[in-house]
Structures are given as C-alpha cells and as structure tokens.
C-alpha cells in the first residue's frame, strides 16, 4: 500500500509538479477575487476567511478527477481491484496522495495568501488550523465522488456537482473557525465539529468509495 502511495506521489510530481499546481490555482483564485470584488481593503478583509476557504476547496476540487480517472482509463484500476490489497486501502492511499499533493501545500501557503487578502492579524493561526483539520475531509470526500463518477466520460463537472454539496458542512465549520479567529471572537463548537467531521469522513468514506468503485468496474 505504501508502494501505491509512493507511486501516486511520484506520478503527481512527475506529471507536471503536482505540489505546485494546486497551490498555483489557489493563488490565482485569491488573486482574481479582488478583480471581481474591487480593491477595497476593508471589504476584502471581511470576506478573506471565507474566500480563502472557498479557494482551497476549489483547488482541491479541480484535482479530484485525477484521483481515479487516470487509473481507470489505463486499466490500472481493474488490476488493483484484483490485487491482494483491499480496495478500501487503495482509496485511502489515493486520498492520502491527493491530500499530500494538494491539501498540505494549501495549508502551508494559506497564511501568505492571507496577506494578499488583508486577513486581520489574529486570523492567521486559526485559518491554518482550520485548513489543516478540514482539508483531509475534502480529499476523502473527493475520493468518494471520484469513485462514483469513475468511468463516466463527463469531465470534472459531474464530479464537482456531486461533491460540492458534500463539502458544505466542512466549509461551513472551517470558514466559521477562520472567521471567528480573524474577528477575535470565541471559536466555540465549530472547531471540534470540524475535527469530528474530518475523522468521521476518514473513517467511513473509504468503505463507501470502495463499494462505488466495485459497482463501477462491473
């Protein structure tokens, strides 16, 4: 299974800088927001936590279809399904590779982008923490979505459509933690709830995803 993780990381890096690209997309989204919204720093500061969370979410989303689609196309998934490792393990490893190449860099880069968005001072720590807790859930949920849509020739759009509603709770609590942090309020229940969602997703989603893959291979 570690072999699978290593291969996926190698592929992500070799196939054009897996690490860099998610990050670059995040940077771009954050850059584009002021063009849309206007350069007023007060407003930008207000919406910064939410937009940073949304940007992270979209950066994750955009790379989701790589989780399984390539393996499906070249037949690797058929072969993995008949290999001596459980499909659940395959899903976990693929989600982990996705998180390492997309989620983790976002967590590390978020403070720098916070500067661009005039995030208020106390927000930086909370933003990073909330992303660190929340992005694993995004990757696992995304793996489930990828499993549902694997084999359908429809580009990422259907996948996004399925996955985005599932992202809503994570987004709400994550952005809430970041916003309260930025405004200096008490964080409250949002943080444990966010952590809880992540843990539950990591524990349960792989089974759903593996079941979906089995159905799709049929």
């Amino acid at each position, binding site marked *: 299974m570690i072999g699978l993780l290593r291969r996926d990381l190698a592929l992500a890096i070799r*196939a*054009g*800088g897996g690490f*860099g*690209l998610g990050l*670059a997309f995040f*940077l*771009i989204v954050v*850059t584009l927001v*002021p*063009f849309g919204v*206007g*350069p007023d*720093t007060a407003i*930008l500061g207000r919406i910064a936590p939410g937009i940073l969370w949304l940007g992270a979410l979209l950066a994750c989303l955009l790379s989701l279809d790589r989780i399984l689609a390539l393996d499906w196309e070249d037949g690797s998934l058929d072969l993995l399904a008949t290999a001596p490792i459980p499909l659940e393990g395959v899903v976990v490893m693929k989600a982990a590779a996705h998180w390492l190449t997309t989620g983790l860099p976002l967590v590390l880069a978020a403070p720098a982008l916070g*500067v*661009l968005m*005039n995030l208020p001072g106390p927000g930086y720590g909370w933003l990073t923490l909330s992303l660190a807790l929340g992005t694993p859930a995004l990757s696992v949920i995304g793996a489930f979505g990828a499993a549902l849509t694997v084999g359908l020739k429809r580009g990422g759009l259907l996948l996004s459509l399925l996955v985005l509603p599932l992202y809503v709770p994570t987004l709400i609590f994550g952005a809430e933690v970041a916003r309260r942090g930025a405004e200096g309020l008490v964080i409250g229940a949002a943080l444990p709830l966010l952590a809880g969602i992540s843990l539950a997703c990591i524990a349960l989603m792989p089974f759903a995803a593996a079941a979906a893959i089995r159905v799709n291979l049929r």
Partner: protein
Amino acid sequence: MSSMWEYANPKRFMQLSGTVLPWVSGLAALCLIVGLYWGFFLTPDDFRQGSTVKIIYLHVPSALMAINAWIMMLVTSLVWLIRRHHVSALAARAAAPVGATFTVIALATGAIWGQPMWGTWWVWDPRLTSFLILFLFYLGYIALWEAVEDPDTAADLTSVLCLVGSVFALMSRYAVLFWNQGLHQGATLSLDKEENISDVFYFPLLVSIAGFVLLFVALVLLRTRTEIRARRLRALIARERMA
C-alpha cells in the same frame, strides 16, 4: 562570418559563453557589492521615508529586471519560432526562473516597504497587481516547460504561450490601471523629469541596477550552458538506449 546568428550555434555559444561568463560573474558581484554597500552604509536617510529608502536599492533593480527578463524571453521565443535556433529557446527557458525570482524579490521588498509607508503589506495598487500577474505568467510558463516531455515541442508551446501571454500581460496592465488608481510611486527614474530623486540616492541606485543586470546576464549564461549540456546529455542517453 560576421553574422550574429553564428553565436546561436550551440558550439560557438558554449565557447563564447565559457570565456565571457567568469568576467560577467565577477563584474556582477563587484557591482552588487559596491552598489548595495554604498546604498546601505553610505547614504543618508530620506527626510520623509526615513531609513526605508535603503530598500530602493533592491526593490527598483529587481522590479526592472523582472520586466526585462520577460521581454528577453519574448525576444528569444520569437527568434526560436522564426529561426529555430535551439540556443534561443533554451535561453528563454533558462531566464524564466531568474525572472521569477526577481519578481518575488520585487514583491517581497515592496511588501516590506509597504508596511511602514502605507500601513499595510499589500494593497491592490495597479503596479503591484500587474506584478502579481506577471508572477503568475512566469509560473505558468515554467510549469509548461516542465510538463512537456519532448524538448522541441516544449519550446514551441512555451514560445506561443510567451507571445500570447505578453499581449495579455499588456492588456492586464491597462485593465488594472482602469480598475484602480493606486498609491504607488510614479516613474522617478526617467531622464527628462524635473523632480528626479536626489543624486545621493541616484548613483548607488545606478550601480546596483548595473549589478542586477550583470547578475541576470551571468545567471542566464550559466543556466543556458546547463540547458545545452542537458540537451546533449539527453540525446546521448537516448542514443545509447537505441543502440
């Protein structure tokens, strides 16, 4: 014999750059040390900006070179598309990370300067914004080079991207100006302007700019030589495998 295109031949280029490189590097180091030392230790503080004027010796040269590096890439890309000299394409590839680094330096020093001057690290000022966009273009350009396997294909695609990107970078510049009139300094270095910055700051700045230019040339020469060698290495290995 006298055609400048001769140096576009990799062999001639390797010879020439081999002899020139040590001199350029030495001169670059000299100018940088002199310019930055002069600027940092021997200039007075500005009456308005205090000691922060000293940032100008890094900020302005790197900003200038960040733009000029892109222009150089544009020219070499055109040369590659029109005359198909490999050295030209490889020089563009070699220049991109250097330009990107200069862009980062300009952004970082500007941001650090902004904190005391404007009370914020970052504002969406046109000059700053266009620089951020330039940085994005650098990122995309470098990513495309890395992503394409075949070197000639990569050279063609990145050249096209560079051309199209330049046009869009210009358009973005005007769009951004239209969108927001900013805080940033106007051009104070132009020769025909009345209120140029005073000579105390001016001369060390010039030396420092010369240092950055030479540093750029030296780095591009060095990296182009590496790229050429890597190309040959690739060809030789492929040939070994075929045999």
